[in-house]
């Protein structure tokens, strides 16, 4: 007797896809882009990215100089040096490593070093934990780095390519952090459609940093700035970050023409006539889409807003997407003890009527986020069960609010 599959349709041709992890996807994108310099320091869950890339180099598949430095601080420092000197530069990190890098990420942004940083988003210690959440990325929230969050392995691959072109765009010249959730994306194998090597090379083009340090003229890079110039220089940086709202769309459009995959800073998923919606970023947005579909099938009008471009924050797109939605839960995979979490605050700053928003913190330290849990959020919002200005906490299938109750676990 042969085991029977529960399918009713025949298989289709998926030859163009490869089953690889998000980390491998990023490494493939890096191989195709072939950066000159890759200063890096290992940390879980970023390690498969750098191991895969190192193997590509060892096998002669790309020419990148993998610079195994002695800390993430030095990795980012070397990256800034290399990028400004005139070489295309990338790096990768996560969690504590990102925390150690942050000082230099601010500098990279202000010195306008277009370094692509793949971040395998992971919780910050302590307690020490290696699993996924967004608290590390939030450390660099105000650094001037652009941040993109991937939902799938495919997106991690695509955003590494898009991110490179975005970082190096002449109006931008800023570090770009490509976030892929630790383990849920870095270590999960999914079908990914790799583009031809030559197509990626043509798409990103040669690295052409304007007047690099090792160009042919003298120049003082990173002078000391007093109060009479600091603010102006900072404004210049702010302007470049803001410009990424527009340039992201241009690059994404060009990428669409190349790949057939279209990305928006903000994706509105089944928002038409929705009574309630979730707002979130990263891998769990996929789960949320399942929940939305399921609830819609059952006649409940719900939707999802998925944010892919987190910095600069697409305020107007969010405002538009949520304009007609009467109830919204903003989901943060990070906390800000003592106040409401960061994504919530960003969304609250973008909508006209903040009283329709509630906050839920989920998935810290890699806590699983089942469909039932996301459904409980939507049901709670629809029933106006959640108090305003107090975050709820998603544990397994249920959202929990303090209200004098004891910790549920």
């Amino acid at each position: 007797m042969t085991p029977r599959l529960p399918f009713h349709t025949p298989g289709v041709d998926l030859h163009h896809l490869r089953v690889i992890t998000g980390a491998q996807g990023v490494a493939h994108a890096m191989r195709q882009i072939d950066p000159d310099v890759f200063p890096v320091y290992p940390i879980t869950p970023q390690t498969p990215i750098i191991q895969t890339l190192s193997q590509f180099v060892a096998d002669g598949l790309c020419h990148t100089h993998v610079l195994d430095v002695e800390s993430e601080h030095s990795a980012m420092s070397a990256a800034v040096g290399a990028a400004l000197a005139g070489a295309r530069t990338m790096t990768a990190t996560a969690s504590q490593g990102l925390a150690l890098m942050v000082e230099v990420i601010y500098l990279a942004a202000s010195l306008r070093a277009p370094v692509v940083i793949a971040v395998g988003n992971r919780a910050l210690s302590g307690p020490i934990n290696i699993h996924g959440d967004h608290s590390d990325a939030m450390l660099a929230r105000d650094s001037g780095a652009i941040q993109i969050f991937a939902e799938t392995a495919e997106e991690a691959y695509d955003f590494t390519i898009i991110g490179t072109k975005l970082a190096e765009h002449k109006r931008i010249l800023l570090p770009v952090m490509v976030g892929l959730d630790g383990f849920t994306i870095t270590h999960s194998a999914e079908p990914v459609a790799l583009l031809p090597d030559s197509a990626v090379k043509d798409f990103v083009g040669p690295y052409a940093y304007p007047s690099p340090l090792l160009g042919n003229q003298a120049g003082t890079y990173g002078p000391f700035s007093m109060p009479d110039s600091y603010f102006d220089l900072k404004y210049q940086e702010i302007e470049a970050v803001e410009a990424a709202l527009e340039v992201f769309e241009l690059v994404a459009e060009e990428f669409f023409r190349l790949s057939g995959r279209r990305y928006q800073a903000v994706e509105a998923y089944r928002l038409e006539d929705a009574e309630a919606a979730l707002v979130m970023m990263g891998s769990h947005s996929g789960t949320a889409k399942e929940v939305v579909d399921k609830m819609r099938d059952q006649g409940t009008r719900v939707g999802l807003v998925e944010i892919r471009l987190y910095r600069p924050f697409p305020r107007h797109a969010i405002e538009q997407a949520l304009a007609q939605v009467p109830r919204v839960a903003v989901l943060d995979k990070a906390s800000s003890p003592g106040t409401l979490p960061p994504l919530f605050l960003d969304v609250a700053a973008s909508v006209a009527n903040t009283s329709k928003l509630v906050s839920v913190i989920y998935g810290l330290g890699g806590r699983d986020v089942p469909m039932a849990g996301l459904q409980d959020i939507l049901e709670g919002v629809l029933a106006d069960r959640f108090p305003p200005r107090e975050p709820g906490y998603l544990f397994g299938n249920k959202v929990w609010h303090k209200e004098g109750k004891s910790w549920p676990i």
Partner: protein
Amino acid sequence: MLEIRFHGRGGQGAKTASQLLAVAFLEAGRFVQAFPEYGPERTGAPMMAYTRVDERPIRLHAAISEPDVVVVLDPSLVLEQNVTEGLGSQGFLVVNSGGLGSRVILPDIEGIVLAVPADELAEKSGTRHANTVMAGAVAALLGEPSLEQLLGAVDDVLARLPESLRLHNRQSVQEGYTYGVNALRTLDASSAKKPVHPAPQPARDTQAAHGPKLGRAGALIRPGDYPVPLTGGWRMGKKPAVFLNRCVNCLLCWQFCPDGAVVVDGTTFLGFDYAYCKGCEICDAVCPTKAVVMIDEESPVGSLGQLKEVSAS
């Protein structure tokens, strides 16, 4: 509110003077604030310090752009900076006239200008710094704080100094105070005691000053295109000069001059560039033949500081 701005050079004690007045004013029952302006500058570089005094608690934490009183601790700054910037027509300008040469012309303002021979008075009191003298003179001019309050402030602010130095500073405060009191007699005393606020002036627009020209990330790509600050004003007292006939062209002075102020043509020593020379005297110290001499700032000398031997000595 009374606002005082001190102009000095790093190391001249402008910050100390601003604190001294603040502590003394507190003693006189006023609310006060004292703060310096910090930059990457070092000993000798122009800097400013401020004192605010009011009858009620001071909540303001902004720079002082329209001072009632401007105190200049180093007369050479009058050449380098617009020390009266923002000083209203009723303002007071108190300048240390020590070593004040013919090249310094005090600004012509409607308010009171008082020149205090503070270097001289400081020396008489046994200190090297004019700051405490100037604080004393300013207090006398304003009629507050009292001398006792100032002396108390000296003990407080300079508590870490050895007893003897503190005594010298008490002495110099007193000298300055007395000088101010005497000077006041010749001034119109009533107007001196009532500082009047000048008409507000538009704030300087730094955006307009820098904005359009800003290079990316502040990078200065062709360094030659940017202005070079002259540092000759840092000299206090003496400048180097040379008897070329004694010079053996060893270039040791060139080697050790921190400021690139030794002028060399090819490999031949020519003299000094006073636009940059900070007067550290290293050239004098290292010259093996005593060709370099330190001379008074006012002594006439050729542009490169070349001197002619008058007679065999």
